């Protein structure tokens, strides 16, 4: 492997398709050896950004550097990136081993390793992806998860400077997804390669990555560790994208936060007085008596799963939301309940 993993800098990248901007002034630094998730909903521009980094698409403005060297105009063939496509893009007329060896065989004679060296490298990679017995199979004979692993091995075979994965688990079912996630993490730890993957699944991003870059409508909303983006979302868009939240009217008065004229334990030391909105996650509620409640409503459904109660409540105005609590006492349907807020994020 590369002794010094590559850093990638994305500087002021913008791109539009037929006049529709899909990326606006993206600035992002990817550290050497880190596993970064590009997270965002459909149409946020995350795949386009990945394709621009790979050289499959060229930006309208801005530049990309690999370890400080400008690669914006370097063609994809020379950029030394390993790209794993969402639908694998395996060569279906080639065996698994030939697929993996493709990039090495494609080299000019002078740069091409000897035949037995290529074969050995393919074997090692088959080993790595635990498909030793499938060397002579064709892609059509493999399952989705196996194809994905072959696609990754193929990308790794050319010893790329960075590994780029586009929705790597998007087309797989839930169980295979979970296994592959853990496996990708392992591989990354073993190779220590700078890796970027695109996903629209927050859980996947939060579980796998060292840092998450959240894109929304072509803008980079926040970059941070999974914990940072969860605990301190930079915008409502990030907050919303990372999970459900109920926003309630609140007021700051003398460095205290009040909802429904009752105190909420959220730090507002640096805020001036005035109205604001408090965004509360489902687990930041406790069931309580009506007198103590920050908000109240009528229970419309209740179920318990994996040790937690999920209670759906209709507020007087008609708004419906579900809370998620570890409390043992379950309310009945049609019961009027009060909720105490134990945390939340403030956005005006």
């Amino acid at each position, binding site marked *: 492997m590369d002794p010094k993993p590559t850093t990638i800098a994305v500087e002021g990248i913008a791109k539009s398709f037929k006049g529709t901007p899909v990326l606006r002034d993206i600035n992002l630094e990817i550290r050497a050896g880190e596993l970064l998730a590009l997270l965002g909903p459909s149409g946020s521009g995350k795949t386009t950004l990945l394709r621009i980094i790979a050289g*499959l698409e060229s930006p309208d403005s801005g530049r990309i550097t690999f370890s400080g060297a400008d690669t914006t105009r370097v063609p994809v*063939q*020379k950029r030394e990136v390993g790209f794993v496509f969402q639908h694998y893009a395996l060569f279906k007329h080639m065996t698994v081993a030939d697929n993996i060896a493709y990039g090495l065989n494609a080299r000019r004679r002078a740069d091409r390793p000897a035949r037995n060296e290529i074969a050995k490298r393919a074997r090692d990679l088959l080993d790595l992806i635990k498909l030793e017995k499938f060397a002579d199979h064709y892609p*059509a004979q493999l399952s989705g998860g196996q194809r994905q692993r072959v696609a990754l091995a193929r990308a790794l075979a050319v010893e790329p400077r960075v590994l780029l994965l586009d929705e790597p688990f998007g087309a797989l079912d839930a169980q295979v997804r979970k296994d592959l996630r853990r496996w990708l993490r392992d591989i990354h730890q073993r190779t220590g390669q700078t890796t970027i993957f695109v996903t629209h699944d927050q859980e996947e991003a939060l579980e796998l990555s060292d840092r998450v870059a959240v894109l929304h409508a072509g803008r980079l909303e926040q970059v941070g560790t999974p914990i940072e983006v969860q605990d301190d979302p930079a915008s409502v868009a990030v907050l919303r994208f990372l999970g459900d939240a109920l926003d309630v009217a609140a007021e700051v008065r003398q460095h205290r936060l009040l909802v429904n004229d009752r105190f909420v334990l959220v730090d507002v030391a640096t805020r001036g007085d005035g109205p604001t909105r408090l965004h509360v996650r489902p687990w930041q509620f406790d069931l309580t008596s009506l007198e103590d409640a920050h908000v109240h409503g009528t229970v419309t459904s209740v179920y318990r799963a994996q040790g937690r109660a999920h209670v759906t409540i209709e507020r007087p105005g008609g708004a419906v939301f579900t809370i998620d609590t570890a409390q043992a006492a379950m309310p009945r349907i049609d019961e009027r309940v009060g909720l105490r807020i134990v945390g939340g994020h403030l956005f005006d």
Partner: protein
Amino acid sequence: MAARASLRQPSVIPGFGMTFGYAVLVLGIVVLLPLCALALRASAIGIGGIIDVVRDPRVASALRISFGVSLLAAIVASLFGFVAAWVLTRYNFPGRRLLDAIVDLPFALPTAVAGIALASLYAPNGIVGGWLAAIGIHIAYTPAGIFVALVFIGVPFAVRTVQPLIGEIDREIEEASATLGATRWYTLVHAVLPPLVPAILTGFSLAFARGIGEYGSVIFIAGNLPYVSEIAPLLIVIKLSEFDYVGACAIASIMLAASFACLLLINLIQAWSHRRFGHV
């Protein structure tokens, strides 16, 4: 009815007995019965009889010309047909749609019309022929004329069999190859072309099979000189006009056998490629 019901999977859609029964009846009377007549006649002649006919130098040379020129024409049609299919599918240029529509022309244009048109073009006093004659090349009334006519006939087979597959090429395949460092040429040769080979072979076989049997577009331009530019189908017509049914049937059965061999080949290619490539 009970027997047939067990042969097909149950369905609520009505009309199987009626439509299938009618289709089989018509197929039997229009296609199979007449072909059986040829098979019957051929078996009456026997292998020995057929060999005797084929040993006749004029028949042998006609078959050689028909098969040889068809092979050459099918190769050329497949080659240029592939380029045409690629260009028509992948590139955008003015007149593309018009050209694409024109590919079907040999399907729709009567062979005799094509025949006299080609003959007039390539005759020594024709537009192309005159120009070529000036540099000493003679097309009309030589095997080259047969070749020109058979390329004309073969083009749509070559183009239309590969065209849909070229349209379906997954761009990600080409991108994947590029990210792995392959040059465009390497990508085309190793990643794009191989999956198209079965379709190219199918188009080639169709063009070849059609070329062996082609009559109308060839006879006007070929000149029909025995031993030089006389094709097998024409010899059948000549034998028929001489009431030599044995000779006609012998040649016909050889041609029919060749057609069936092509048909079988096509089915084998398709079965193989389906097994190999499946759906990824």
